């Protein structure tokens, strides 16, 4: 009886020591939650969630804010966030409309070269100089709308991204054909 008790206690102590050591020795540096959330967000920096950029929203989510405030991310981002945070995926917040991919376009003959849009752009996707015409680098534009408001002459349009052959998604309604034996 006593021997068994001592043996088990001894074993428990030994294994506890091993586990304790392993916990320290093989500690996995987990990605901080905010970084993981930030990686899921689309980084448009559009502020439609009510926070000044994606990272502040990531921080807010980590602190318990709703995960359904990101229209550019859409359902895909919500789903990912839900699985990351272990919460239920909600549909996009009613106040926000799901985003169609758009890019800013400057009507260049109307541009007066005020640089206000350049200052507003969170990703430096607008090039131009004072009193010179500005233009948008379409590939870098995240479609955040932030440049539209500051423009004093309203020469910035948000145009939907044209679908190209590369970006085209197969139409599920396309009629498939079926081979049948005829003879």
């Amino acid at each position: 009886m006593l021997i068994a008790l001592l043996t088990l206690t001894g074993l428990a102590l030994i294994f506890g020591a091993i586990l304790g050591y392993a916990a320290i020795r093989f500690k996995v540096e987990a990605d901080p939650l905010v970084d993981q959330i930030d990686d899921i967000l689309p980084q448009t920096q559009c502020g439609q969630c009510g926070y000044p950029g994606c990272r502040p929203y990531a921080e807010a989510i980590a602190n318990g804010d709703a995960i359904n405030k990101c229209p550019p991310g859409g359902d895909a981002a919500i789903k990912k966030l839900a699985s990351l945070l272990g919460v239920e995926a909600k549909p996009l917040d009613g106040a926000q409309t799901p985003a169609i991919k758009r890019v800013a376009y400057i009507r260049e003959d109307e541009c007066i070269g005020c640089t206000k849009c350049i200052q507003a752009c969170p990703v430096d996707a607008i090039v131009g100089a004072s009193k010179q015409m500005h233009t948008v680098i379409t590939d870098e534009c995240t479609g955040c709308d932030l440049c539209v408001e500051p423009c004093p002459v309203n020469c910035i349009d948000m145009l939907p991204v044209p679908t190209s052959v590369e970006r085209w998604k197969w139409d599920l309604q396309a009629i498939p054909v079926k081979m049948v034996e005829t003879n």
Partner: protein
Amino acid sequence: MASLFQQIKSGMLWDFHGGIHPPARKTQTSQKPLGRLSLPERLYIPLRQHIGVAGKLLVQPGDYVLKGQPLTAANNAMAVPVHAPTSGHVLAIDDHPSAHPSALPEPMIVMVPDGLEQWRERQPLDPEHISRQQILARIQDAGIAGMGGAGFPTHIKSSASQGVDYLIINAAECEPYITADDALMQTEAETIMQGIDILCDLLSPKAVLIGIEDDKPRAIAAMQAACGNRKDFYVRVVPAKYPSGGEKQLIQRLTSKEVPAGRRPLDIGIVMQNVGTAFAIAQAVLHDIPLISRIVTVVGETLSRPQNVLALVGTPVGFLLDSCGFVAEAKQRVIMGGPMMGFTLPSLQIPIVKTSNCIIAPTDAELPTTGPELDCIRCGACAEACPATLLPQQLLWFSKAKDHDKLKEHHLSDCIECGACAYVCPSEIPLVHYYRVAKAEIREQHRDELKAEQAKARFEARNERLEREKQQRMAKNQALAAQRQSMLAEQQKQQIADAASRVETTAETLSKEQIIAERERKKAEARAYQAAKAQNQVENPAETKVEPAPATEVNTDTATDPRQSAVAAAIARAKAKKAGISENAEADEVPASSATLDSDKAADPRSAAVAAAIARAKAKKAGISADAEAAKAAEVSASPIALDTEKATDPRAAAVAAAIARAKAKKAGISAEAEATKSEDAVAGAENTTPVDTEKAADPRAAAVAAAIARAKAKKAAEATSTITTADLTAETAVNTTIAADVPVAASPVADAADPRAAAVAAAIARAKAKKAAETQQEPSADAEINQITPETETKAVAAEPAVIEASTNVVAPTDAKKAAIAAAIARAKAKKAIESDQEKSE
């Protein structure tokens, strides 16, 4: 066991998993001769007909182009040019529906053939005498891209110089209906062999395997004949099975090797080219004929003459069908590509491109549309049919759920979209469509992720930049502020120095300060004048009062003397002014002494007051550094004013002086503010007593003001020694106030009160001065001084007291007593000055 190479050499074949056997229906066209077509009215040549990027446009609308003339130029490795299929004019370059499942508009060159078929100059090459690079360049310039369907640029695929074990020529052509390669091999076997020879020169493989399905006996015979006695050329006849024409599947069938997921055949030492590509290479290198035409199978039961035709690239599908006797039925579908992997065309204007191998215009009975999609019953037939050994029903599940992670786990990317699963599906689920949508979504998502990463990097870079700029701006501002401050200090120092130098030299130039001082002086003069006037008036009643007394002569003297003395004082003042501010102290002394000279009379207090005012003004001019001096002057002024107890003007003057002092104190700094308010309070407290007895209150007020000023200045003078100083000061002020309190009590005899008060005030001044001296000097010496002075003042005060007693007993005596007191005060003042200027000696 024989090596793999030996097994392959011995003609061994393998099999791949799954696969289906759909009706081939190749006999409609395979036995017929190659059809030749007339020129269409228009040719629509897409700028991009392959995987990669479009070349740079070389022509403009209206240009005349010769047959084979390049219309675009390849400006990078992934670009291949397109050529004019025949001679003619370029009509326009604009967007038309493309030969793509989406049929999205893409830029195309619209050509109008002139029917002359005029060739550009051709430069055939001899492969034996040219370099690899030249051949590859020719392949690229000829616009050759994989003709099996994918359209990968051939020059890239052919540029591997080593590590190629097998060159496989894909002639399987497994899809139903299609016989284009069959027809090509039947007619152009020799040219194909020449093309393969060129590819062998480029790739130097160990063996060439030509894979042909067993349903093309004529092509097999032609190819075997064409091979002749070429070493290591093997025509391999594989049993028909869909999709053995798939790259990975054919490799597996011929070599038993499997291409790893996400890798290319070159990674396992295999290069595969379509038989049509080999033909195009031969044409391009040996005859300098670019890829401007290809064989297309035009088939379907709606056509009266289904056949293989040699069609120019850019020929509209509608034209092809019409030349084959097309009779459209209701809801006619036209399929580009095979029935398994092709797509229906929304318009017959869509042109034939380099990768189009078949056009099917079936009747609805021939190729019925699928029925409604039913639910998956999990029969597993699709998994059995899948040549890539995937699990199609799982993929369908995850595709519907848009679970991209799971799709990746189940290797959706390995799906070759052959359609075998959909073909066997009893529920008629268009599985491949789901996969294609899912693949497009994954691609899109990947693109978005890349873009998000890029945007994040740019956003962070921008934030960093903004922060950096802010820091720089702040540093700059700080530097500027520091510079400004040092400049300001410098300026102040300069100003002080200037003031000092001005004091040192002469007051020739009238600076702002000097103007102010001048104004101050004038004010003081006016005040003095008024005081003189007022005294005159007061003195007269005094005269009448004193008249009964025996000594009337003295009074008359005093009546006239004040004016004289005032004039004298004025002259003295003027002189002093002229003499210069530098002689401040002396100037102070001069009026004082002159006053003493004149002063057997009651006029002395006034002249003293005037002198004090002058001193004050001068002290002010001296500047901030001379604050202490000014304080002394103010005190000095306060004390003579205090002497004139009976006049109503004096309290006002004192008040003004106090106000000035206050203003100075305020200017001096915020640190002294509390003190200033205290002094103001003291003044206010003093003023509170005025309603009680105006005449008597004059002195206490003046004393209080003087004390307040002294305090404020002392505060300013030294902040470091503040505790001791303030303690001393408070003690002093306490003494002052007690004196001030004593004075009114002693002053009950109105006329005689002047002396004790004056004495008290003088004592206070002396103490204040001693304090100041102590602040600048060592404490012991200051203490000693105080000790020295206090007894002095005490003795004087004691000396004054009998006078008071005397005055109280004798009514006639007051004037004498006053004179004596004044004289004493003057003497004291002189003595003090002497002490100040030469302390050590006096000690």
